C-alpha cells in the first residue's frame, strides 16, 4: 500500500538560513501525524513545502506514490488551516464555507455546493450560524468555520498549522477532541503542527519532534514520551517537564554532580551520562537524600512539587492526597526502572 505522503531528504533554505535540513517523513493513508517543535523549528516551512507554497531546494515529495516535488499547489489537493483563521469578515458563514468550491477548475453546481456546505456545517455543529457574518462569530466559532472550509473541499490531505493556538485554554481542550474525531470520521490523513505538548501527545497516531529543521524522533506518543532519543526531545514533551541530571556512575549508583544518589545501576560502559526522569516517576518517599519543598501546586487530580535536593531542583508529580507544604522536607526516590539514560559521547 502506498503512503499518502512521503518526504525524502527535503531541504529548504532562505538565504543563509536552513529552515529544513534533510527531512524524511512518511504519512500513512489515514494517519494523523503531529509535528511538535518550538518556535523557529521549521514547522510552518514544512507545511508550506508540503502544500507547494515553498519549493524544496533538495529532496522530493511523493503523494500517493507519485512524485509531486514540483506540482503546483492546486494540483496537490491539500487543505491548509492556519492559526489565524482567515475568513472574509463581512461574508456569511455559508459564503465563507462555499468559497473554496467556486475555485477555478473546481466549479460545482449550486445544489452540490449547498449540499456540501450543509454537510460540513452539520459535522461541525454550526448549522445555526450559516447566515451570520463571520465578524460576529466568537473565536471558537471562527476556527470551526475555518476547519469547515477545509473539509468542504474533500481534499486528499489536511495540513493544520497550530489551528487552536489563539483560542482560550478551555475551548482548545474541547476542539482538540472534536478535531480528532472529525478527521478520523473522514478517514483522511493529516499533518498537524503544534508547539503544545498536550496536543502532540494526545492527537496523533505518531508524533515527530522537529528542531532546527531536523526530525529528531518519530514514533507513537507513548514511546517518544517514555523513551526519548535525546534530552532535547525529552524536554519537548511532558508537563511538568522531565528532570534531567548530569550524572556519573560510582559504587553501584548513578549520582548527580553533587554526589546525591539518583538510581542504582549495573556498571555501565560509559561512566558519565545524562539521566532523564519524568516527574511522575519520582516517588515522594523512600529515598536517602533530603529535599526541601519550594513550591506546591495543585492541578486537581495531582499536585506538582518543586523540591531542592542537593544542588539541583526536582519536579515531582504526586497524588493530590499527598500532604505537602512549602518548607517541608521529604526524601524522594526515583523509580529505577523508569530512568532514561543517555550515555555521554566519548
Amino acid at each position: 500500500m502506498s503512503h499518502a505522503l512521503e518526504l525524502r531528504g527535503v531541504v529548504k533554505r532562505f538565504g543563509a538560513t536552513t529552515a529544513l535540513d534533510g527531512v524524511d517523513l512518511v504519512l500513512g493513508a489515514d494517519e494523523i501525524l503531529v509535528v511538535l517543535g518550538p518556535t523557529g523549528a521549521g514547522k510552518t516551512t514544512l507545511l508550506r513545502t508540503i502544500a507547494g507554497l515553498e519549493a524544496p531546494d533538495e529532496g522530493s515529495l511523493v503523494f500517493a506514490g507519485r512524485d509531486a516535488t514540483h506540482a503546483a499547489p492546486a494540483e496537490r489537493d491539500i487543505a491548509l488551516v492556519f492559526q489565524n483563521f482567515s475568513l472574509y469578515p463581512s461574508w456569511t458563514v455559508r459564503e465563507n464555507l462555499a468559497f473554496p468550491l467556486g475555485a477555478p477548475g473546481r466549479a460545482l453546481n449550486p445544489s452540490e455546493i449547498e449540499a456540501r456546505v450543509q454537510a460540513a456545517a452539520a459535522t461541525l455543529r454550526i448549522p445555526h450560524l450559516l447566515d451570520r457574518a463571520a465578524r460576529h462569530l466568537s473565536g471558537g466559532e471562527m476556527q470551526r468555520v475555518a476547519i469547515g472550509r477545509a473539509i468542504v473541499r474533500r481534499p486528499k490531505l489536511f495540513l493544520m498549522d497550530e489551528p487552536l493556538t489563539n483560542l482560550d485554554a478551555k475551548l482548545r481542550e474541547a476542539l482538540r477532541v472534536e478535531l480528532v474525531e472529525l478527521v478520523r470520521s473522514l478517514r483522511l490523513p493529516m499533518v498537524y503542527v503544534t508547539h503544545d505538548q498536550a496536543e502532540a501527545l494526545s492527537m496523533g497516531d505518531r508524533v515527530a519532534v522537529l528542531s532546527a529543521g531536523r526530525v529528531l524522533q518519530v514514533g507513537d506518543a507513548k514511546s517518544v514520551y517514555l523513551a526519548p532519543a535525546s534530552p532535547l526531545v525529552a524536554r519537548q514533551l511532558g508537563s511538568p517537564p522531565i528532570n534531567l541530571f548530569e550524572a556519573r556512575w560510582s559504587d553501584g549508583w548513578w549520582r548527580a554532580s553533587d554526589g546525591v544518589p539518583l538510581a542504582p545501576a549495573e556498571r555501565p560502559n560509559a561512566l558519565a551520562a545524562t539521566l532523564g526522569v519524568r516527574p511522575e516517576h519520582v516517588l515522594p518517599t523512600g529515598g536517602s537524600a533530603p529535599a526541601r519543598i519550594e513550591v506546591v501546586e495543585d492541578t486537581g487530580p495531582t499536585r506538582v512539587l518543586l523540591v531542592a535536593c542537593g544542588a539541583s531542583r526536582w519536579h515531582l508529580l504526586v497524588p493530590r492526597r499527598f500532604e505537602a507544604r512549602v518548607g517541608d522536607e521529604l526524601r524522594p526516590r526515583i523509580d529505577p526502572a523508569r530512568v532514561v539514560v543517555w550515555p555521554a559521547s566519548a
Partner: protein
Amino acid sequence: MSFLALERVEKTYPNGTRAVKGVDLAIEEGEFIVLLGPSGCGKTTTLRMIAGLELATGGSIRLAGREVTLAKPSERDVGFVFQFYALYPHLDVAANIGFPLEATGVGRAEREKLVREVAEELDLSHLLARRPRELSGGDQQRVALARAMVRKPAAWLMDEPLGTLDADRRLEMCEFVRARQLRARVTTVYVTHDQEEAMRLADRVVVMSDGLILQDAPPLDVYDEPASLFVARFVGSPGMNFVEGEVRERDGTVRFRPRGAELELAVPRGAKPGPATLGVRAEFVGVVRGDGRATLRGRVKVDEYLGSSRSLHVDTPLGRVVARGDADAPSAVGEEVGLELALDHVRLFDPASGRRLA
C-alpha cells in the same frame, strides 16, 4: 479590616454596559488571589479598578488601610504587570531589572541590592552584565519577569502576564512568579482565563462570570465543591461530566434516574427529589476494561494519551463521559468499556439555576 477590600464595587460604562455588577472581595496581606473567568466576565475591569486605571462607578476599594476608590494610580502604591514586554536592548541585564526602581527614585545602593536579590531568586546572577541579545529566549523572559517584580509595592496586579508565552514556558514562569511572591510576600491579584494557571498559583481562586463572583475559595475547594454548573465546567481539565435527570425517592431510598436511560445511580446524602444535573470529575469515573460488571457501558471514541495519564472519551447511553485512565495501559480507542461513578465524588446541581444542590 482586610489589607485589600472591595465592597459592592461596580463598573457601568457611559453606554450602559455593566461590566462589574457588585463585587465583594476581602484579601489579606501577602495573599495570592487569582481572578478567573472567560473573556468578558469582568475580571480585567475589576483589576483595573484596583489599579486606578479605571474608576469604579459604585462601591469602595480600600488598600493598606486607605480608601483609594477614586485615587490616582500613582497614589496607590501598586505594581501593574502586563504581558512581559521587551527588554531595552542597549542596557545590560542589571540596568534592565533596575529600571523601575530608578524610575521611582530609589537610590543607587538600594537599587543594586534589590536587583541582586531578585536576580539571585530567578537564577540570573551570572547574567547581570550581559546585554539582552546575548541571552536565550527563556533567560530574556526571566529578566522581564525580574524587572516586573523587582519593586515591592503594596500590591502586585497582574493581567494575564504569561499570555503570549509557549505552553512549555508558562509552567516555568508560573513557578518563578509564585516563588518570588512567596518570598516577597507582596499581596497579589492575578487575572487569567486559564484555569490550570489559576489552580497552580492561587491561595484563593475567584471565579467570575458576567460581572459577578460565582465562587471565592482555595483552589481545591473550587475544584472539589464547585458552587455552580458554570464553575464545575470551567475549572478542571477536563471539566466535570454532567448527566441530566431526576432525583427520585422510592421505598425510602433516594436515587438518581438519568433522563432516557434505564438505570439508577447512587446520590450524595441530603439529595432531595426533583430534577437535577449530576456531575462527576473524570478521575472519579472508574474504567472497567473487558466484560467486567459495571453500572454504565459505552464505547471509547477518543483515547487521549497525555504522558502521565489518559483521558478516555466514552459515548454512553447518558451521553459523552470522560474518564481519567492509566497512562501505562494500552489505548482503549474503539473498545467497549464499563464505567463506575464514585459515589463520594458525585455532585448535584439545579438544572434551572445552575446552583449546587448536594
